[in-house]
């Protein structure tokens, strides 16, 4: 594991206006106005969205803007990318990669079919995580890295390694580390993936909970994004999925993307759903398409 210490490191406003739908006897629903996002543009869709991509897209750009780290007004423009990969000092996220590797090796020793299951029938995991989430024909559902781990453990070893648990996250961060640096390529040419993307997109704009917030209330232009929300400044959703599972300093543990969704729902005072829930999977597909062409960036810390 490389642990070099390196130099650290507005836009087309979405048409404003809450869209409320009342059709016939349909219940009244409020959605945050939808921003225009073209899934084919992948991470480049941030241009014309938050327009922060040029500040964090590459190592060189992060270095050039390292002066913003710790600046309460400018830091959000770096999209926290200065904390990905080996850009920050040793933290437990790095150690989790080794732990996950040891766990996966142990499980594969019990039955080599476990590794073959993770590797889509092959022998190596290298680069595979960059293609997730994807549609699995045999299972007839969308699979994420975390659901793949859960499913392989169950079917091959009859062991529960549930999504949203520390063992699953450790194996996941190891699995994904074998794609670190590989550009994410969620297959938007797959009809099932796009159906999931569209459902996830709808969820992103749906106002929920006691606060009547949508994900978009904080993460599209014209929303709270780029403004202060107490101590935080919400950032762009583009490339965000790339660094999960991440080591979360507030909880001192690895956190998967779907666990992060759950944490957001708590802050939005919205009823919880669990990692692996189809709604979260759709949201993960939507979010990961917004990371297409950006490299898998684990381990990371937030």
């Amino acid at each position, binding site marked *: 594991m490389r642990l070099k210490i390196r130099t*650290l*490191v507005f836009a087309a406003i979405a048409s404003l206006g809450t869209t409320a739908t009342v059709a016939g006897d349909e219940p009244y629903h409020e959605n945050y106005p939808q921003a225009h996002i073209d899934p084919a543009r992948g991470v480049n869709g941030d241009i014309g969205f938050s327009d922060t991509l040029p500040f964090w897209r590459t190592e060189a750009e992060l270095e050039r803007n390292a002066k913003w780290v710790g600046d309460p007004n400018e830091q959000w423009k770096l999209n926290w990318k200065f904390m990905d990969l080996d850009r920050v000092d040793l933290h437990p996220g790095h150690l989790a990669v080794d732990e996950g590797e040891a766990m996966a090796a142990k499980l594969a020793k019990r039955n080599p079919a476990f590794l073959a299951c993770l590797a889509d029938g092959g022998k190596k995991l290298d680069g595979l995580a960059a293609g997730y989430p994807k549609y699995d024909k045999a299972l007839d559902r969308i699979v994420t890295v975390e659901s793949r781990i859960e499913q392989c453990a169950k079917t091959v070893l009859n062991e529960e390694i549930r999504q949203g648990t520390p063992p699953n996250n450790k194996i996941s961060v190891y699995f994904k580390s074998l794609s670190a640096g590989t550009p994410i390529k969620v297959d938007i040419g797959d009809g099932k993936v796009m159906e999931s993307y569209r459902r996830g997109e709808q969820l992103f704009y749906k106002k929920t909970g006691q*606060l009547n917030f949508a994900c978009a209330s904080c993460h599209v232009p014209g929303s*709270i994004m780029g403004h202060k929300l107490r101590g935080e400044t919400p950032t762009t959703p583009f490339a965000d999925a790339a660094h999960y599972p991440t080591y979360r300093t507030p909880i001192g543990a690895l956190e998967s993307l779907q666990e992060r969704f759950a944490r957001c729902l708590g802050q939005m005072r919205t009823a919880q*759903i669990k990692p692996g829930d189809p709604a979260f999977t759709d949201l993960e597909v939507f979010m990961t398409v917004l990371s297409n062409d950006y490299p898998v960036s684990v381990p990371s810390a937030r």
Partner: protein
Amino acid sequence: MKSISANCRAALAALFLTTAGQAGAQAPAPDYSAYPCLSYTLDCGKLATRKPQVKMLEGTLNGNAEKGKQLAQARNNGNCLACHVMKGGSQPGTRGPDLSHYGSAGRSDAETYTAIHDMRTRNPDTLMPPFGTNGILSDPEIRDIVAFLQASK
């Protein structure tokens, strides 16, 4: 690659520390199933949004400005400070208008009460939670916050 500057490292260390200070307590999650959620299967997934509701201030305000200040600052309560600069409190938000001199703006108690109860009645595009309609703040709590705002000069 150059090595990290001392400044950046200090900033990062501070960052870790500040975020660590916000560690979520492991209290049981409150039940929000009475409001819309993202689930495809739970009942809350099909729940309607509560419609914008005009509520008039009844009688005199009779609010307690000091209590209102506390409510406005508490993260688990009004948390007005999340989006607004106000008198007192730390780490104010910047998305909403600065309310630190609200009392000098000449707005009535009645319109202020109605706006906090449900800002959607004034501005359908608002990001502001419907505090009264969604039961985030009670009638006396909204009165306290109105009193605090009117005392902010």
